[in-house]
């Protein structure tokens, strides 16, 4: 196999495996890299410097950083179902055959239509701060036109086009000490805590541990730091109670020391695992993020963080340019110059706003013959697709303007360093407030509010020796706080303290008149002028400025630009940085896929699926199913060639004319037992239960304490101290929980036990004039004569030889028997009924027919004809409200709002055209609409075609409905028609009840 040459790879060095070359594809081009590369380092090795286009102006952008802070190198990784947008190339571990593309370049990075036209800003009206609000929000109807263009040109990646084929796992775990970050402080902390015997988790977002030590040449314990990292990792690996998680980002810090970690699997960066960790103590050693400087045209490809330059040169053995320069306000930036020089890359000069520069690092740079332009700033960067040189001018005495003649440095790489910002994100997510430290010119962790402690650069400590000491102490302290003896922590690793001169805060470099844009947030193209404009327009609070200018709104959440942006706003308002404060740090630290959060809880594992004992029969007989709560219920049973309406009409006529059979096993069933069971039901239901005879049933209505209908069902008295309660299919769990709560919290003295028995019983309902005949064939020991076994009674006996409890109740208005047997016998019962009923034309029917039959009788379904704002009086059910006793919700029924005359009341509707079936949910008006908005007087809750009555029927809630009998209401439909309907009684079929009593 041949590998394309890597023209920008240094001949030796780096933490890459030159024995393992890897082919990969970027924007359609085949490139090669090595194991140990990130996509970003491999792209640089292949000479790819242009990786995207900016959001607003479509300016060419290159790689700026080397980690989570990267704003520009945002790529789409993978293809088809296995693709993820908005990945940072700097954090994407290179693997064989990796496919990636720029997300923000349409149609391509090199030839970009929008840029050819001068960016979105030229295609569309000028885009200053707040441009969305100013330009696009009015007139509102124009937004959809703008949005289409913006979305396409801005290109924020695409979602996968097919379901995720991967299995994603979640792991729940407890530990004593969680260490976030595996740099010097994190490793020292994990070692100390691990040696004390604590259960430690050490997580680092990179694929190898070491953090800032990886590119450096520091010494720890008098040996090269990289060797110390190796030994530290070996020691940790040997500890049984320590878990090392490389490639793992601690992305969220939640309440009670609960943290979420996202682990990427080696070799397949799209495969992820979510760790849900409950830690006794947390050590935050997440390091610091270098700040860029804000100066004209600071976004040219080739402008790169000084620390990233060092990473690419030393860790990845890549030449990020052929001739470099440095713009820094602090000593640490000088390291990049030394790293470039050590690897044969010339450096044209250093620009430093400080007038005296004397630390050891600048001294070494001077010794190598590199000129340091002190008291100067960069005032322009030449080159469009690549840095060609930088312009340098002298700062005025006051430091707020530039003076003199501009000098030019020829270079194609500009390293920048504006100092370091501790990664306080997790600390802030834990609920604490970072505070601004004037002396170090950065936000540092404030007082802890959870069991966490920051250490090292994350705590604003930038010297290696101090980082190691602090990390070690934090690890030992965390172990001690978790109950281990800190004495076992051993010796702290040591390093020589290094001397660094203080930085000079430079939040916005002064520039000459007519200067180019000074970018603060690369991803959202927010420049300094946008922020200043926002303040001039009186946006003062940082959160408001953020929303107005989009500062920090990108997928990078402003890791690079936010602190500079706040400081610029603070200078403009005069409030100072400490008072201006940060915006809120929200989880996740870096983006994570929804799939990682969903884990395996999708598809059939999203929610339990419940099937009745007779389910397979329905499947075998071609039933269409409907979801009712978690239950799968037969909806209707189409015969070959039948449409739904045909099947439902046939089923309805069979139940009305002969006998229908329904699987009613999903009804909620609760066993209510105990000496106070009847008293308990008296309180829960609106009607009285103490006088109900054993062997009899009663319909009951439950209200919330607000008086609104909550559930209904039939309850039977099995014994003096025992009731069999049924609830609606969807309400069973809620009703049980509701009753449990009253028993436990308010009436613990009532001796009542509740047991859910829904799944213990299979229930088969036979409805229709022939149902008695079928039952008589099947049963022994039960007298089915109407007088012996009346409506609202139940009998124990056997049905088809199976011990059964038969209820004579009716939800259809027909003569009806509900047979309950132990669930295991449900299918046998069903089969026996079908066989015995064959001569009578027995017909299985589903929930749709059940709904039609009950609506013909005007029986409500709680949750369909009621919606939590309906009282029993609204339903015309005053008859079920006991006057003699209190019950839950009773007092509310006399509240003024519940006795209003214009409340919506349940009525029936008959359309003028008998074939017209109103849509459920249709709004009703008093007259045909002449102007909008028209006053609504109610809505349709249930609506069907009644084959038995040969006209449509509907139930509706209509204001003052019962006083409108015979009147007309109108339903304006979506299709523009208005349908007139007559208000009538909700009972359409057999109002005297002769059928069900027969």
């Amino acid at each position: 196999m041949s590998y394309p040459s890597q023209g920008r790879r240094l001949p030796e060095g780096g933490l890459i495996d030159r024995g393992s070359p890897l082919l990969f594809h970027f924007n359609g081009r085949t490139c090669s890299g090595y194991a140990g590369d990130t996509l970003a380092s491999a792209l640089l090795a292949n000479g790819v410097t242009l990786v995207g286009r900016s959001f607003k102006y479509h300016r060419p952008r290159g790689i700026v950083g080397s980690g989570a802070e990267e704003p520009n190198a945002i790529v789409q990784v993978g293809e088809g179902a296995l693709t993820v947008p908005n990945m940072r190339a700097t954090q994407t571990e290179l693997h064989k055959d990796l496919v990636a593309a720029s997300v923000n370049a349409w149609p391509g990075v090199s030839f970009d239509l929008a840029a050819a036209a001068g960016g979105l800003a030229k295609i569309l009206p000028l885009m200053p701060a707040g441009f969305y609000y100013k330009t696009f929000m009015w007139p509102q109807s124009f937004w959809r036109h703008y949005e289409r263009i913006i979305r396409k040109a801005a290109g924020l990646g695409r979602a996968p086009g097919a379901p995720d084929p991967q299995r994603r796992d979640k792991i729940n775990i407890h530990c004593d000490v969680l260490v976030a970050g595996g740099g010097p402080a994190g490793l020292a902390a994990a070692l100390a805590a691990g040696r004390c015997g604590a259960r430690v988790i050490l997580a680092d977002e990179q694929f190898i541990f070491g953090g800032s030590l990886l590119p450096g040449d520091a010494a720890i314990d008098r040996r090269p730091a990289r060797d110390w990292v190796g030994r530290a990792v070996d020691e940790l690996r040997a500890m049984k109670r320590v878990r090392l998680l490389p490639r793992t980002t601690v992305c969220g810090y939640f309440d009670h020391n609960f943290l979420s970690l996202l682990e990427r699997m080696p070799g397949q960066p799209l495969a992820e695992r979510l760790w849900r960790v409950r830690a006794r103590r947390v050590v935050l050693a997440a390091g610091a993020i270098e700040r860029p400087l804000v100066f004209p045209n600071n976004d040219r490809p080739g402008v790169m963080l000084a620390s990233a330059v060092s990473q690419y040169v030393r860790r990845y053995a890549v030449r990020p340019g052929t001739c470099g320069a440095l713009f820094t306000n602090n000593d640490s930036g000088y390291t990049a110059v030394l790293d470039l020089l050590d690897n044969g890359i010339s450096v044209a000069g250093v620009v430093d706003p400080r007038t005296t520069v004397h630390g050891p690092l600048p001294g070494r740079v001077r010794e190598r013959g590199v000129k340091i332009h002190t008291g100067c700033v960069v005032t322009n960067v030449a080159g469009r697709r690549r840095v060609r040189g930088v312009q340098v001018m002298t700062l005025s005495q006051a430091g707020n303007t530039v003076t003199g003649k501009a000098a030019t440095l020829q270079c194609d790489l500009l390293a920048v360093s504006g100092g370091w910002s501790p990664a306080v994100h997790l600390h802030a997510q834990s609920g604490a407030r970072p505070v601004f430290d004037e002396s170090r010119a950065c936000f540092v962790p404030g007082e802890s509010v959870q069991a966490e402690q920051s250490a090292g650069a994350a705590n604003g400590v930038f010297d290696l020796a101090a980082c190691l000491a602090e990390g070690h102490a934090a690890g030992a302290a965390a172990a001690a706080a978790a109950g281990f003896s800190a004495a076992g922590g051993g010796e702290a690793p040591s390093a020589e303290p290094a001397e660094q001169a203080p930085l000079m805060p430079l939040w916005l470099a002064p520039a000459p008149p007519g200067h180019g844009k000074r970018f603060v947030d690369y991803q959202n193209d927010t420049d300094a002028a946008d922020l200043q404009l926002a303040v001039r327009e009186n946006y003062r609070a940082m959160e408001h400025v953020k929303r107005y200018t989009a500062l920090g709104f990108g997928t990078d959440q402003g890791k690079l630009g936010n602190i500079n942006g706040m400081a610029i706003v603070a200078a403009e308002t005069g409030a100072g940085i400490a008072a201006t404060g940060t915006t809120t740090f929200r989880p996740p630290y870096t983006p994570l896929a929804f799939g990682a959060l969903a884990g395996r809880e999708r598809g059939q594992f999203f929610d339990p699926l419940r099937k009745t004992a007779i389910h397979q029969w329905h499947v075998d007989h071609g039933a269409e199913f409907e979801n009712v709560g978690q239950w799968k219920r037969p909806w209707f049973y189409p015969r070959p060639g039948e449409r739904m309406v045909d099947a439902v009409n046939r089923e309805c006529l069979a139940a009305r004319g002969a006998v229908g059979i329904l699987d009613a096993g999903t009804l909620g069933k609760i066993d209510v037992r105990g000496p106070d069971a009847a008293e308990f039901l008296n309180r829960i239901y609106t009607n009285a239960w103490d006088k109900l005879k054993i062997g009899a049933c009663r319909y009951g209505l439950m209200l919330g304490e607000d008086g609104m209908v909550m559930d209904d069902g039939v309850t039977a008295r099995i014994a003096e101290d025992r009731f069999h309660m049924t609830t609606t299919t969807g309400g069973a769990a809620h009703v049980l929980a509701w009753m449990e709560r009253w028993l436990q919290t308010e009436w613990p003295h009532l001796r009542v036990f509740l047991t859910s028995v829904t799944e213990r019983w299979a229930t088969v309902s036979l409805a229709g004039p022939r149902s008695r005949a079928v039952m008589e064939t099947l049963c022994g020991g039960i007298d089915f004569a109407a007088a012996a076994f009346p409506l609202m009674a139940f009998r124990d006996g056997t049905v088809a030889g199976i011990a059964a409890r038969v209820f004579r109740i009716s939800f259809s208005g027909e003569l009806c028997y509900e047979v309950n047997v132990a669930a295991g016998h449900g299918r046998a019962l069903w089969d026996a009924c079908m066989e015995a009923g064959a001569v009578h034309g027995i017909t299985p029917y589903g929930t749709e027919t059940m709904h039609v039959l009950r609506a013909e009788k005007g029986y409500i379904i709680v949750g369909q004809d009621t919606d939590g704002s309906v009282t029993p009086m609204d339903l015309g059910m005053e008859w079920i409200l006991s006057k003699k006793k209190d019950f839950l919700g009773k007092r509310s029924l006399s509240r003024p709002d519940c006795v209003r005359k214009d409340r919506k009341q349940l009525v029936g509707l008959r359309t003028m055209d008998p074939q017209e079936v109103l849509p459920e949910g249709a709004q009703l008006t008093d007259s045909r609409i002449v102007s909008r908005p028209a006053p609504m007087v109610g809505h349709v809750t249930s609506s069907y075609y009644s084959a038995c009555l040969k006209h449509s029927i509907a139930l509706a809630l209509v204001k003052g409905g019962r006083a409108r009998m015979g009147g007309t209401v109108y339903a304006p439909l979506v299709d523009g028609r208005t349908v007139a309907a007559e208000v009538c009684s909700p009972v359409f079929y057999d109002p005297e009840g002769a059928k069900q009593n027969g």
Partner: protein
Amino acid sequence: MLLIPCPWCGPRDQSEFSYGGQAHIVRPAEPAALGDGEWADYLFMRDNPMGAHREQWCHSGGCRRWFNVKRDTVTYRILAVYKIGESGGEGEGGGGAP
């Protein structure tokens, strides 16, 4: 995610529990004797303190028992956990009626 110490089962993740709102709201013995305003107070009006708050929780994914929690609504720290019928002591957030 809170870590809630169920009085019967010990500390468990919040996802095993359901929230029941303010604790120690006693159902009036004679609702019919109350005016509309008094009944509305019982039915709708709840405290919304910044700081200690006594509330009911149910270990619905565990032992299914209701109990009382005294919790700081700012820090989310759980200050006390006690069974139904117990007062949970005096102090911040008010004493709980048994």
